């Protein structure tokens, strides 16, 4: 694998990864901006609309037809949040020319399509094409409505809203229903122009051979854009609530759910991750072995550390009558770690799991992109091996200290409605 990162302009990074084992090429363009409930929805629409049509393929139908002619090339967008940042992405992947049966230049065609999507979008008179806008706006409104379809997803969203209340991260990565309803094609176009001017931009290209055509295209196209990039605050510790809060909702569901949020003032993200692995991320974790296997209370009970926000979550699906028992056991297991209940074997096993996981980086184009983009967000580019060595330095004492730093912040509970007798 050959890695290279260069600056194409002010706040514009271009990372190229060459790996000859792949049959495909992949590209991701990430626009990083401050997550804000006022602008999140219109930003999301602006990014999504780019992949529906452009100045050459002016309808969604025409765009889809072209992409399927190119052997089902993928072109899509994404919105996610990391800390207090909104990350809007355009992603594409396609077969390398070697696999084109009729000798088509798939690479060249995709370069043109992506260039036009980003720099010659389907817009006129300062507004995006109305038909494309309508499709994307409806999609976003439906996505917001369908949050409630997946109960575990809904419970996690509600838990984040509660834990981060008053902070940018309380907002979903795609914004609010009000924001989506209020947006117009002109608003979305303005939002896109503003993103091109102010967002931090990171571009990733994974190909089986050296190919400078994409970096050249981006350098040239961005050269014509006046840039005033704004620093985005990804890492921002969420304050602990003065008094832990609980929000409970009741629905006609079969299973109750609870998401417990903790806050930490620890900056030791490696120890927090090791803590999470030992406490609740794996089938050899304390929550799995005790809450699930020993007590048979649940099918899933897991933990995760969100170090950029200084928060830590535990979620569980459980019978309403067992919520308290489960909560007591979850806290008891945490107290056990705080009291030094971590074995050398648990640390060794966690390192083995991490070692296996980091070695798999590079087995798919998307794993390269995720790896280098996460490094960028963390402010330090390193190899998976160096990253792993940081975990090897984590001692039992650091894990115990990480557990001791967790303070209960809030709990979201979804109850299954009790049938009245």
């Amino acid at each position, binding site marked *: 694998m050959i890695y290279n990162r260069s600056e194409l302009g002010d706040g514009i990074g271009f990372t190229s990864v060459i790996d000859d084992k792949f049959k495909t090429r992949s590209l991701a363009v990430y626009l990083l901006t401050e997550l804000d409930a006022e602008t999140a929805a219109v930003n999301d629409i602006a990014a999504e609309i780019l992949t529906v049509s452009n100045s050459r393929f002016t309808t969604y139908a025409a765009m889809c037809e072209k992409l*399927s002619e190119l052997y089902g090339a993928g072109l899509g967008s994404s919105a996610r949040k990391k800390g207090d940042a909104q990350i809007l992405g355009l992603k594409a992947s396609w077969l390398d020319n070697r696999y084109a049966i009729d000798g088509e230049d798939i690479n060249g065609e995709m370069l043109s399509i992506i260039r036009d999507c980003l720099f010659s979008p389907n817009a006129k008179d300062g507004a995006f094409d109305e038909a494309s806008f309508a499709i994307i706006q409806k999609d976003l409104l*439906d996505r917001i409505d369908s949050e409630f379809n997946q109960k575990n997803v809904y419970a996690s969203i509600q838990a984040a809203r509660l834990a981060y209340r008053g902070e940018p991260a309380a907002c979903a990565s795609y914004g609010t229903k009000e924001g989506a309803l209020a947006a117009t094609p002109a608003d979305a176009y303005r939002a896109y122009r503003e993103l091109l001017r102010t967002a931090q931009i990171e571009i990733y290209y994974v190909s089986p051979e050296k190919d400078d055509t994409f970096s050249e295209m981006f350098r040239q196209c961005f050269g014509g854009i006046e840039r005033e990039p704004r620093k985005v605050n990804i890492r921002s510790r969420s304050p602990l609530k003065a008094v832990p809060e609980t929000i409970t909702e009741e629905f*006609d569901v*079969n299973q109750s759910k609870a998401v417990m949020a903790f806050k930490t003032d620890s900056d030791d993200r490696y120890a927090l991750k090791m803590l999470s692995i030992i406490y609740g991320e794996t089938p050899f974790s304390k929550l799995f072995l005790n809450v699930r296997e020993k007590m*048979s209370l*649940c099918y899933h009970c897991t933990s995760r550390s969100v170090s950029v926000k200084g928060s830590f979550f535990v979620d569980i699906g459980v019978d309403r009558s067992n919520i308290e028992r489960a909560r007591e056991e979850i806290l008891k297991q945490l107290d056990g770690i705080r009291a030094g209940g971590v074995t050398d074997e648990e640390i060794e096993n966690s390192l083995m799991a991490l070692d*296996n996981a980091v070695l798999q980086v590079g087995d798919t184009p998307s794993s390269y992109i995720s790896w280098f983009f996460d490094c960028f967000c963390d402010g330090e580019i390193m190899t998976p091996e160096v990253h792993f060595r940081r975990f090897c330095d984590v001692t039992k004492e650091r894990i115990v200290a990480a557990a001791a730093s967790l303070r209960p912040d809030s709990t979201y509970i979804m109850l299954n409605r009790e049938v009245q007798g």
Partner: protein
Amino acid sequence: MEKEIITGSRTGDSCIHVRHSSGLEIFICEMKGFSSIEALFGTKYGSVNTMFRTSEDKEYTTVPEGIAHFLEHKLFENEDCGVFELYARTGASGNAFTSFDKTCYLFSCSKNYEDNLRILLDFVQKPYFTKENVDKEMGIIGQEIKMTGDNPEWRVFFNMLSGMFREHPVKTDIAGTVESIARIDAELLYKCYNTFYNLNNMVLSIAGNISADKVLEICDECLRPCGDNGLETVFPDEPAEIVRGEIREKLPVGASIFDLGYKCAPRSGREMLRAAAAASVISSLLSDPAQPMCERLLKEGIVNSTFGGEVFYGSGYFTLNFSGESDRPEAVREAIFAEIDRLVAEGIDEKDFQRIKKSSYGMLIRELNNVEAVANLMLNSYMEDVGPYDAIDMLSELTADDVAELMRSELRRDRCVLSVIEKEE
């Protein structure tokens, strides 16, 4: 024990196939440049296999719904310790799944694959069921059943299957019900295990950063030969007709969803693969935003980007389904009916057909780029009695007439079921 090299004619990709002396079929793909390893050890035993006998049985045995899935859970516990504890020591990520027609145990790792393979082959061949450990599992699986019961996509799909199938067990949830699993005990689990976990009914598929010779050496060391038990699985007679054309249920959801499916004649082997390829083209034709019907539905806001189609098939069932979010699923049904009528009457545009074939070819090539996908590809080819690279060849041989014929003969309005999950008011 002979190594057969299977090579895909279009891409030159190849894998090794071995019929092991123990009775097990083994597929191995050495993938140069990749770090990870994916291994699946599977049996042709899924939720639909509720009635069976071996050459030693006079009568057929009928077992409670959900037992294949229950067995999968219990096999993770051996006499000395849990299997996850063993994988914890090697760093592998171990898991398992039960579907309608198979149960698979798997691991993925990038180190110590030899030890992981020994763990996998050993625990799957070493059942340990007791009253205590069976009773303990009831609570965990009970919660899993409740969790999936709250998943509207799961519910809308099974409601559709219950409208389609009168007798076939495919209509029943893979995990069974809280009531059906209560009838499972250690004895019944052993009966099912001894019937279906015979190596003559099983496959090992392993891909990635491996040596085929080393894999075979470990197989020689760990596999315990077993005689063919003459396994026969039977399914109740299933009429061609559906049970009900429309099923609606109100649930606490944010967006209404639908599943619309056509019941088609079941098939097997290469005939099934050929029909699946043709049905997949139909699915693309009808859910492709490049086509006028889908373009109109999107413009009118009747569907959104969740609209799509899939072919669902296995032992004794074959269906073509369309699903998505919509407040007007009847309008989607009408549009699909009208479009099928038009395509049957006017024929399929050759340009559209070739374009969709290209797109499908691209997807198949991409699978070969991924260790996990390659391991699953080889496993599924065994389960479907076809070769690992047959799908690409089958696709290239497919004609627009094949597709039109399947559409004309199978996609009948009276064999169509619409299942809807509606928002509660």
